[in-house]
């Protein structure tokens, strides 16, 4: 196999990404300059920057799953989560910083789904980086107009008796859905429950796995 791709396509028919053989952009230079000044003035350090990047990379939907599993098994925690989700997720070590988190509870009659029509606001402290489709115009523009159709494309067919509530993160709030706990999971431990809680079920485009 040749390793020099030029403009060829991969075996699956996708173009290879070009190598970045160009000088640093204005903004890249600016970032490096600001970072170096901050380190020089002892405002931050290389270690602190590295640790922060690692911490950000380590965020994943398993954080959110821990919050949801606790809410399913501890009614008092769920009550606190619904009142102040930022504080309740911080209790488990997931700090959302200056942003505010709102937890939205699915019931037999209400299904919640989240979006950011203006950009890509997402509860990163609990779910990590957003999936590509969450940032795309197609999802952002269609979920507020025809949520039932979009959810059907995700494999979720909602009956007419269920009210769909779409939550557009337009300003300073971030959202997480508390999905319905699947039936026949009474005997499962909190940790076993976390394995059923998917990223999509916390965005609201899916439901948890069944036991």
């Amino acid at each position, binding site marked *: 196999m040749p390793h020099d791709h030029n403009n060829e396509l991969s075996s699956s028919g996708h173009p290879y990404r070009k190598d970045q053989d160009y000088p640093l952009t204005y903004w890249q230079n600016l970032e490096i300059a600001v970072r170096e000044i901050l380190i020089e003035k002892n405002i931050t350090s290389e270690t602190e920057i590295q640790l922060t990047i690692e911490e950000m990379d380590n965020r994943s939907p398993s954080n959110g799953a821990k919050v949801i599993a606790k809410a399913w098994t501890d009614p008092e925690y769920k009550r606190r989560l619904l009142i102040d989700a930022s504080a309740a997720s911080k209790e488990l070590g997931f700090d959302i910083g200056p942003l505010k988190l709102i937890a939205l509870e699915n019931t037999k009659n209400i299904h919640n789904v989240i979006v950011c029509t203006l950009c890509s606001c997402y509860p990163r402290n609990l779910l990590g980086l957003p999936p590509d489709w969450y940032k795309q115009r197609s999802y952002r523009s269609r979920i507020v*107009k025809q949520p039932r159709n979009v959810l059907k494309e995700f494999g979720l067919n909602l009956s007419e008796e269920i009210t769909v509530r779409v939550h557009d993160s337009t300003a300073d709030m971030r959202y997480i859905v508390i999905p319905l706990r699947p039936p026949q999971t009474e005997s499962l431990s909190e940790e076993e429950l976390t394995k059923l809680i998917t990223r999509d079920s916390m965005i609201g485009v899916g439901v948890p796995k069944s036991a």
Partner: protein
Amino acid sequence: MRVKVKQMFPPGHVRTPFYLRGKTGEIERELGYFKNPEELAYGLNANKQKLYRVRFSMSEIWGEASEASNDTVDAEIYEHWLEKV
């Protein structure tokens, strides 16, 4: 309380989506005061503005084109974009 989103089109970093302008909804909850992003985005000394979560019905937003009239969209709208109805 019922409120209407002002039908205005200022330039700049605005957090009120176009599809909700001119639409009437119900205040779902008050969120407290936050620095106005329309000023904050430009490095200005931003004033704090009251932020609300407003619930709109699909039929109010999309009319005949809505899938189910009772489904809703909730969005965060700053007070200076709202008027009482």
